[in-house]
């Protein structure tokens, strides 16, 4: 229920909301994508990007221009914007930002743990970490000898600590498969984020909770789909499903029992929101995959978030949309550089 957010939101967060709306207005439009698709070389892509908000971000790059350089520069730009928002934010928006960075932190931590277990040099891994997921204890990871040391000394201070406690006790850290660990952490993180948004109430809860519910259900579906044919047992699978979505509890139980795509589809048919998504999935090659459909729906929900004012969802939505745009540009650039234009139009259009 609206608690008069419009009265006091602008005091603390008005400037940032205005800023983020301005940034959102400079996302690439359909026309920009059409221009990009018609480029012949990566140099053309660079020229086209100069006319957009990206400006001369590739100006200092030496020849030859590669797709990975474009990707790195775009990510740097996004990080700069994100850090700016974060540095200027006040509570509770700063906690919101911290939650957003947790997902990148989880990836980084998994990478670091892996590297520490295999005695790789920390410097190399630090370069590969996602910049948005930086936390201060990162360099200290190589001091820890065993994973439990890692947990006690390093991770306890980070915002990720409660998620680790949810997953497991310390001594099972190294036996678990890294992917399972990552997914368990992500599940705890999603649930915590959902609780935070819901407890904040107001427009934020109205916008963010559906988005997070969709994210949770999407993860459940994708994990189920990708675990067909692997050694992942049904019980293990069930422990990876986040419980903050619409599928909880009935749908998750049914999903855990599913053996193939059709059974999954039948579970989805019970929910009005997911039935049309599954119907839009083409079969085999040539049609859309389930993940494509989910990506499109996520983009839709993120764009709709901008229709309401005075909530934190705009920041989340902007970051996600910017990431999708980066992925689109990288996809188009790859298709151009590999001269494989058959699927160049398979990017996800945003605006």
């Amino acid at each position, binding site marked *: 229920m609206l608690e008069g957010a419009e009265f006091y939101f602008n005091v603390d967060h008005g400037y940032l909301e205005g800023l983020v709306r301005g940034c959102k207005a400079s996302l690439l439009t359909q026309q920009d994508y059409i221009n990009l698709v018609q480029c012949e070389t990566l140099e053309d892509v660079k020229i086209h990007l100069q006319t957009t908000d990206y400006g001369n971000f590739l100006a200092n790059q030496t020849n030859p221009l590669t797709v990975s350089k474009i990707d790195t520069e775009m990510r740097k730009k996004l990080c700069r914007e994100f850090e700016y928002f974060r540095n200027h934010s006040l509570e509770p928006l700063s906690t919101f930002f911290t939650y957003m960075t947790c997902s990148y932190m989880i990836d980084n931590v*998994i*990478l670091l743990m*892996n*590297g520490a277990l*295999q005695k*790789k040099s920390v410097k190399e*891994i630090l370069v*590969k970490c996602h910049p948005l997921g930086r936390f201060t204890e990162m360099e200290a990871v190589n001091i820890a000898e065993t994973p439990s040391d890692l947990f006690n000394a390093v991770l306890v201070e980070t915002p990720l600590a409660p998620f680790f406690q949810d997953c497991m006790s310390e001594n099972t850290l190294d036996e678990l*498969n*890294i*992917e*399972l660990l*990552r*997914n368990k952490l*992500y599940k705890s993180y999603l649930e915590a984020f959902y609780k935070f948004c819901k407890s904040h109430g107001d427009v934020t809860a109205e916008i963010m909770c559906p988005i997070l519910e969709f994210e949770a259900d999407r*993860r459940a579906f*994708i*994990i189920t*789909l*990708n*675990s067909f044919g*692997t*050694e*992942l047992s049904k019980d293990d699978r069930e422990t*990876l499903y986040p419980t903050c979505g619409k599928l909880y509890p009935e749908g998750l139980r049914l999903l855990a029992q599913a053996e193939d795509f059709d059974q999954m589809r039948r579970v989805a048919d019970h929910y009005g929101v997911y039935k049309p998504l599954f119907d839009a999935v083409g079969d085999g090659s040539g049609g859309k*995959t389930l*993940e494509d459909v989910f990506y499109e729906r996520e983009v839709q929900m993120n764009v709709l978030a901008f229709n309401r004012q005075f909530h934190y969802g705009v920041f989340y939505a902007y970051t996600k949309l910017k990431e999708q745009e980066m*992925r689109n540009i*990288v*996809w188009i650039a*790859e*298709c151009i550089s*590999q001269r*494989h234009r058959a*699927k160049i139009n398979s*990017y996800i259009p945003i605006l």
Partner: protein
Amino acid sequence: MSGKDRIEIFPSRMAQTIMKARLKGAQTGRNLLKKKSDALTLGFRQILKKIIETKMLMGEVMREAAFSLAEAKFMAGDFSTTIIQNVNKAQVKICAKKDNVAGVALPVFEHYHEGTDSYELAGLDRGGEQLAKLKRNYAKAVELLVELASLQTSFVTLDEAIKITNRRVNAIEHVIIPRIERTLAYIITELDEREREEFYRLKKIQEKKKILKEKSEKDLEQRRAAGEVMEPANLLAEEKDKDLLFE
């Protein structure tokens, strides 16, 4: 490599037989080597054709695989560091076997899988389908690469073998056999000459003998005419023999 020499051997009938046998041996050897060279060339051509096919296919497969990598990156984000961090043992290994083509041992590489897929759960939360497709495409590319490697090593080995064999064939054909033939010709000419010498010598001796005989006959005639010659007793003439005591 002078082309005018012959084997130094004393010309005799036995030498001639030996040389003939050697010539026969050289010719048989040359034919056998020619057959081997032809068989090797045939195999060579086949391998060449297969290499061309495989290389074309390789181009396609690599392109496909690189594109599926781009697709997977689009769906799943950047998973390259995770994958690289988790590498410990090779899953696809190669064992080398020997194949025999017309007497030439060619190495052949066979790949085999060892161990389970340690990246089975990669991309569990995003892009798993694309990652599976990517794995399949690159596995195909690796198999093709192994096959191409086998073919290329065989190609190089066969090339060497063919060169050596052809060199041998040419050596026998243009050096050994002419040399033996020249030796044979020399022996024959020597033998002929010797025969002619013998013949001539014989003729001369006969002449001399004839002259001697005529001279001794003349002598005899003269002496007989003078009555100095006593004929030896003729056993066939029916005269009484004084020495016989009992008759």
